């Protein structure tokens, strides 16, 4: 049976779920507020609506049109990126932007205006959306694009599901010659080195991202591995690739992620032998290393976990990142997955879009209650000091006044929120 909870395993059972199966149909007339539900891959409460209704879009999963000559795809909003890849890759097309999991819906990708490892050259997902239809609770349907109803377009991209239901969208895909990428891994010893390496390497590569060993202290602080990737050109011979999927069979009674396992993992991962030069890698393990272990979020046990993703201004650089790492080290709470990337300056059409020029750091933390929340408030102070912001898709705890500070367009945006729509996050950040 389907549970409506977030990826961080926050539970907020809705009072009612409407399974949508027909994009032509009107929205239900509910006495309580509604919120579209994609595939529940957001970590926090952006996709939850405690006490209200959810509009489950899993049944809006039809393709509408695909032109293999131009790479323009039109599909319903509940179609998952995974299904787009299955359709498009064999025909020589790839997602223009992809997050670190392919199990997200097109509607969810637009509503959070997701980003990928190519942000520095391609911008966010919203930059590649040509148009979509927005269905409002008053029954009106708007065709939104940069040319037409552009305000609604801007409000809905990164609009956290609050402006209405996206029924379908049209995307511009990106050409590829085959499913493989040339990838390379480069070790760096500290944050300063990361910043120099990035400045030198990123302009030459489509995909860049770094893994940070956020447990290493002292001289090792800020060490990590920098990964670059580029779609391979036509090759006469392609390597074999066999997809493997496993599933965490049950939720362990306590978290498998603890100080000991973290330290061991980070130590091993940092020191693992790196191939010299470039390796040919299939897109699945390259973009979606976690997707092969389905439901890996259960390893954090029944208490779940939090993700903290922030961005700090480019000029804040190593200093701000170092302050963040120091705070984490002091708290003694490590993160399995510490991911660092520099965003580029291509602006998104979305008013509340998270990506902005600067360095973004994403971290997972097992839920240790108050201790974890206290750490987050310490990290917030650094983010506020350095012209940063927090990513709503990953957030469950940011204070209301911070949200309004990070997203000054919220006031203009509020006028576009559908009066019948709301979310747990929205009520939290709009609380006086």
């Amino acid at each position, binding site marked *: 049976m389907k549970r409506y909870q977030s990826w961080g395993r926050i539970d907020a059972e809705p009072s009612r779920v409407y399974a949508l*199966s*027909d994009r032509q149909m009107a929205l239900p007339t509910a006495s309580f507020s509604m919120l579209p539900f994609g595939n529940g891959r957001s970590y926090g409460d952006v996709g939850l609506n405690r006490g209200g209704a959810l509009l489950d879009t899993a*049944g809006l999963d039809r393709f509408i*049109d695909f032109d293999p000559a131009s790479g323009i795809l039109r599909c319903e909003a509940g179609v998952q990126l995974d299904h787009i890849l299955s359709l498009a890759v064999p025909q020589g097309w790839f997602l223009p932007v992809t997050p670190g999991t392919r199990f997200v819906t097109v509607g969810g990708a637009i509503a959070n205006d997701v980003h990928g490892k190519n942000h520095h050259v391609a911008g966010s997902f919203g930059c590649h959306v040509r148009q979509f239809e927005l269905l409002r609770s008053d029954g009106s349907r708007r065709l939104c694009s940069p040319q037409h109803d552009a305000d609604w377009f801007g409000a809905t991209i990164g609009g956290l599901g609050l402006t209405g239901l996206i029924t379908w969208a049209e995307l511009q895909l990106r050409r590829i010659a085959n499913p493989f990428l040339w990838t390379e891994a480069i070790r760096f010893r500290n944050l300063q080195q990361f910043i120099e390496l990035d400045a030198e390497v990123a302009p030459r590569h489509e995909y860049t991202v770094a893994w940070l060993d956020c447990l290493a202290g002292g001289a090792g602080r800020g060490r990590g591995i920098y990964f670059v990737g580029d779609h391979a050109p036509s090759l006469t011979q392609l390597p074999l690739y066999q997809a493997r999927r496993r599933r965490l069979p049950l939720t362990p009674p306590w978290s498998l992620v603890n100080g000991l396992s973290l330290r061991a993992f980070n130590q091993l991962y940092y020191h693992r032998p790196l191939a010299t030069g470039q390796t040919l890698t299939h897109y699945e393990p390259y973009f979606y290393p976690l997707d092969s272990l389905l439901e890996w979020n259960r390893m954090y046990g029944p208490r779940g976990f939090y993700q903290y993703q922030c961005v700090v201004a480019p000029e804040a650089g190593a200093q701000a990142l170092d302050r963040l790492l120091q705070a984490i080290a002091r708290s003694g709470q490590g993160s399995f997955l510490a991911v660092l990337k520099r965003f580029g300056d291509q602006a998104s059409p979305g008013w509340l879009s998270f990506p902005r020029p600067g360095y973004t750091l994403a971290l997972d933390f097992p839920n240790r209650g108050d201790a974890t929340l206290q750490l987050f408030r310490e990290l917030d102070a650094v983010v506020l000091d350095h012209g940063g912001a927090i990513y709503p898709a990953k957030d469950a705890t940011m204070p209301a006044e911070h949200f309004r500070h990070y997203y000054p367009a919220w006031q203009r945006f509020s006028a576009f929120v559908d009066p019948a729509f709301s979310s747990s996050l929205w009520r939290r950040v709009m609380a006086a």
Partner: protein
Amino acid sequence: MKKILIVGANSAIAAAAARQWVGQGVSLVLAGRNPDRLSALAADLHVRGGSAVKIVEAIYDATDRTAHAALVEGAWNALQGLDGVLIAHGSLPDQKACEASVAQTLMELETNALSVIAVASLLANRFEAQGRGVIAVIGSVAGDRGRQSNYVYGAAKGMVGLFLQGLRNRLSRKGVRVVTIKPGFVDTPMTASFKKGALWASADQVASGIVRAMERADGEVYLPGFWRLIMLIIRHIPEAVFKRMSL
């Protein structure tokens, strides 16, 4: 199988089967009642199947008695013959409303039984003549025993089940297979208002079972398979006891 007619193609189970078939390069006639949903499905299958598969839409209302022959004739011509048919349409009657209205009871029997028998009969003759073909019909475990909570539906599904038994018997030496699909609880729009528990299957799961069954089965197929055991037990409860149970 290369050419299949799906009657009630807008059903969630049938649409899931259709996706699997276009993935295998099968051409389809989609017969359904709601034209908007039917074209949305056809567009989806066009994108998935590419230019290699042919997708034909046919508007069909099961309660229209003149529609059956026209549907079979039209589908046969559109694909120049058929290898199989999946009859999937159905409605879940409001049992209480049926108790209060004979007209409604008869209408439900029309939708869930008579129309099915009409289409199956017409195709049986064509398949018999060409010496091959597969007739698959979605019945239900509800057709295995009459229960106070939905015996109008159960009676219709039960009638279809018996009819297909006879048809199977008639065609077994004629190269034509007759498959009765008996799903248990399936999470589809038909059951949107039900509370779902452990016994529920997804439309995709049941569709996979149907696609597999149409490849080789010739008989009654419970989906998922564990329903065979559950229904064996339910069928064997003595009527004297059963009539006092509130199932």
